[in-house]
C-alpha cells in the first residue's frame, strides 16, 4: 500500500462516529428483516479474522453478473438498475446458500456493481501521469476487487455487530460506524 507516496490524499478524513440512530428514523429499512435474524448461521472463526473465511466462501461461488461483462465502458449509467431483480425469495435462498459453501452455487445477480464508468473516472482521477491508461479487462477486474472490498467490509461489520450484541450492546442489527472502525485496520491490511 503506497499511502506514503499518496500526495493527492486530502487532509485527515477521520471517521466521525455519530451517535446511534434511533429505530424510529430508520424504520423504513428495518421492515425487511427482524434484527438478529441470520444469527443462526454463525460460523465463527477463531483465527483472528472473524468473518473473512466465511465471507470468502460466499464470494467464491458468486458468479459475476454477466450483464456487466458485456458492457462497454461507454455504456450508459443505467446499469445500477439491475438490482431491482432481487426478490425476497431469492434472498432467502442466498442466505441458505451461504451456510453451505460446498459446491458452486450459482446466484442470480450479484450485488449491484459500481458502474464501470464511475470507477474508471475515479481511477483516472488518481493517476498522476495523465498519459496513463487502464485496459478494459483490468478495469473490470478492479471493479471486482473493490466489490470484494466492500462485501468483505460488510461481512466483517456484521460479525462485529454480532459480537457486540452478544456482549449486550445494542441488538438492533444496524451496522454502526463503530463496527467499521474496529474492522478497518485489519481490512486495510488485508487488501
Amino acid at each position, binding site marked *: 500500500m*503506497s499511502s506514503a507516496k499518496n500526495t493527492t490524499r486530502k487532509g485527515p478524513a477521520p471517521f466521525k462516529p455519530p451517535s446511534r440512530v434511533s429505530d424510529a428514523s430508520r424504520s423504513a429499512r428495518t421492515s425487511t428483516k427482524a434484527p438478529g435474524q441470520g444469527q443462526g448461521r454463525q460460523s465463527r472463526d477463531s483465527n483472528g479474522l472473524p468473518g473473512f473465511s466465511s465471507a470468502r466462501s460466499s464470494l467464491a461461488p458468486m458468479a459475476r453478473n454477466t450483464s456487466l461483462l458485456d458492457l462497454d465502458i461507454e455504456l450508459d449509467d443505467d446499469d445500477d438498475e439491475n438490482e431491482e431483480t*432481487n426478490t425476497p425469495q431469492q434472498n432467502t435462498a442466498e442466505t441458505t446458500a451461504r451456510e453451505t459453501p460446498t459446491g458452486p452455487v450459482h446466484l442470480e445477480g450479484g450485488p449491484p456493481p459500481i458502474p464501470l464508468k464511475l470507477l474508471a473516472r475515479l481511477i483516472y482521477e488518481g493517476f498522476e501521469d495523465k498519459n496513463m491508461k487502464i485496459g478494459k479487462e483490468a478495469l473490470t477486474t478492479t471493479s471486482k476487487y473493490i466489490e470484494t472490498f466492500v462485501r468483505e467490509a460488510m461481512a466483517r461489520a456484521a460479525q462485529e455487530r454480532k459480537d457486540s450484541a452478544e456482549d449486550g450492546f445494542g441488538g438492533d442489527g444496524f451496522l454502526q*460506524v463503530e463496527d467499521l472502525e474496529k474492522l478497518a485496520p485489519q481490512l486495510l491490511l488485508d487488501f
Partner: protein
Amino acid sequence: MAPRAGTDDVSDKERLKSALWYAIGKMVDHEALISGHNATPQFIGALTEMVWTHIENTSLDLENFAKHAGRSMVNTDDVLLLARRNEGLDALLRSFVDHIRAEHGSGGGSKRKS
C-alpha cells in the same frame, strides 16, 4: 445544488463522491438484505470514505505497477498484483479473470499465464 463553472475542482470531487456513495449504498443494501443486517447511513458514509481513499491508493498502485513494467497502460496483471499479499483474494481475482476470459473467448489472450 447547481454545479458552477468556477468551483469545478471541489464540486467535481463532491459529485464523484456522491456517485460513489450512491453505488456503495446500493451494494450495502443488497448485502444487508442477504445477511439480515441493516446499515446506518453513517455506516454507508464512512464506508464510502474508506472505499474512496482505497480507490485513490489503488489507482496510484496500479499506475506505479504499470510504470515499473515500462508500460503506460494498466493491464490485468497489474490488478492481480494488488492482491499479492492475500492468497484468498488473489485466487478469487484470478478465477474471476479466467471466468471473464472464458466468456469472451479469445478476449484477452493468454498473457496472464505464469
